[in-house]
């Protein structure tokens, strides 16, 4: 198939009833009925779109849009409440010297720090996102994953980033993955659910497409590429395949699922390439923090430096930005 044309009939299957018991066979028929990914084609398309040149005023607008899409992330074993509070202050006002810089979309932390982040961000308009479900491996009993999720939501997380059970997915037990997403979605209550596919562990582009459809059908509000703990993380071809899935789902059902590449996006150039990809593959309807996010930590400083470069004309240096 071409990468831009909507896939033929098989790729827009009738939505499965979300609450009915779905058999493994039905899911298998659905996912393996998807058209295969043309590996060379998708890489060439991603590489081609990556050469687009975004300059001057368009670049300035793209940088501000990218800043407003950042999920500012800290997911380290060494995270402290102090570090999370500092990050929250930066999320609300990324550049203290320039009030025209927009706030980021959300701060992403481990569940035990969700309360700290929620307190620091109260009233700011910046959401708290929390990873849950035994992030990053996802290897825990379902009860533990659900408890993890409920606790994060109770502590103020408006968005939950869950990981799928890659072991079950690769073993072909799609039903287990589907049921877990449904259960976590229910535990989320009002919170948005982002489903992390961990594409670096899925081995093939076909699996990325299948996992995307599986997560979308199970009710994900966002599909996210990676935990950031596995390399390769968010590559352009993978993001492209996921954008195609949400585009096709929107065309078939009218529901707009978001996409969040995360991990390995460090430079303004990477961010702008992602925005070009969103516009060209999914369409301008996704160029909004409600439907596209960039999971990153060091990216924000580079965006701020490029913003300074555009506004002052001289090259900035990292000495003038926070270490986080």
């Amino acid at each position: 198939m071409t990468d831009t044309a909507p896939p033929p009939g098989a790729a827009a299957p009738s939505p499965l009833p979300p609450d009915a018991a779905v058999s493994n066979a039905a899911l298998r028929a659905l996912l393996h009925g998807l058209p295969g990914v043309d590996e060379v084609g998708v890489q060439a398309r991603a590489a081609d779109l990556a050469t687009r040149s975004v300059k001057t005023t368009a670049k300035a607008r793209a940088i501000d849009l990218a800043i407003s899409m950042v999920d500012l992330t800290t997911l380290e074993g060494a995270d402290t409440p102090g570090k999370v509070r500092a990050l929250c202050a930066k999320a609300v006002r990324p550049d203290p010297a320039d009030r025209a810089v927009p706030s980021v979309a959300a701060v992403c932390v481990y569940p035990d720090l969700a309360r700290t982040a929620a307190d620091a961000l109260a009233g700011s308009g910046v959401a708290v996102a929390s990873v849950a479900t035994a992030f990053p491996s996802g290897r825990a009993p379902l009860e533990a994953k659900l408890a993890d999720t409920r606790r994060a939501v109770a502590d103020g997380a408006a968005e939950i980033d869950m990981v799928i059970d890659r072991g079950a997915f690769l073993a072909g037990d799609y039903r287990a993955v589907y049921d877990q997403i449904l259960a976590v979605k229910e535990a989320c209550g009002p919170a948005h659910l982002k489903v992390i596919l961990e594409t670096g562990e899925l081995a093939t582009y076909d699996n990325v497409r299948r996992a995307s459809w599986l997560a979308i059908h199970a009710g994900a509000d966002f599909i996210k590429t990676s935990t950031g703990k596995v390399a390769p993380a968010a590559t352009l071809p993978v993001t492209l395949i996921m954008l195609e899935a949400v585009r096709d789902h929107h065309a078939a059902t009218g529901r707009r699922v978001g996409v969040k590449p995360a991990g390995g996006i460090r430079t303004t150039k990477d961010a702008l390439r992602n925005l070009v990809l969103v516009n060209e593959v999914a369409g301008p309807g996704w160029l909004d923090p409600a439907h596209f996010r960039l999971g990153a930590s060091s990216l924000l400083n580079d965006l701020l430096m490029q913003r300074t470069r555009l506004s002052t004309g001289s090259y900035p240096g990292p000495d003038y930005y926070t270490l986080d």
Partner: protein
Amino acid sequence: MSTPERPAADTPDAQPHLAAAPEPGGPAPDRLPAGAGPARLAVRKTYKLYVGGAFPRSESGRCYPVTGAHGGHLANAALASRKDARDAVVAARAAFAGWAGRTAYNRGQILYRVAEMMEGRRAQYAAEIAEADGIAADHADRLVCAAVDRWVHYAGWPDKIAQVVGGANPVSGPYFNLSTPEPTGVVAVLAPQRAPLLGLVSVIAPVIATGNTCVVVAAERAPLPALTLAEALAVSDLPGGVVNILTGRTAEIAPHLAAHADVNGLDLTGAAPEEAAELERAAAGTLKRVLRPRPDEDWTADPGLARMTAFLETKTVWHPVGR
């Protein structure tokens, strides 16, 4: 460099297809006698930049003609853009921690190795500066010897500068007070427009001897010796990025380096007198160390310490006296 006569004995055994069927008495020594074949095509060198230990072309794709003292065309050199300067600063910053973190003794060894590599290319340097400056061959050779000696001079300094400009300060209390010099960071160097080799060596070596890394804008009029120096640097254990050499219009590149917030020092030696003040003003925006140009600089004189101490910071620590 074109060589009028080519020695003939350097090819036969190096080419396997020629040596495939050896004659009983072994290969004849003069199978390809000089002058027997057709006239040899000139193999001209493409002069490129030296950034991060590699030799890239300018990202702009531009180049400019370099002429000798008598107006003849010597070569085309890359005309670096502000983005090449930006990339060079990134390379210099990346190399800084590793270079400054080496022991002073090791930096001295590496600098001496650079002098060894330059010594082997003396004839090439002499020919280049003779063409660039229109001077006699023996004068050019003396200048090259002075340049190599200057490099050796600075190769001795890395493990001695701390004893000369640092030390134990006298204090009236039960503690020690010790000052040590530390490198400033990334230094942008505008190489002198005169003295394309001796002057160049005299501004690069003191900056890197003390642990700084540098981005050098070579003399606009005579950039070729700088690029040949880069070839010596590239094969002398000097980590990539410690010295980055750009060729092009000094007036085009210098303002971007002077205002760059990730550059910590600025050597204005090669700046035009009417531009130096403006560059110094731009450098003040980020509190750079600035070395002002001296129009009467004598490159053959004893260099002293000034060019090293200009890009050093002094760290002073207090430590209680033990019992």
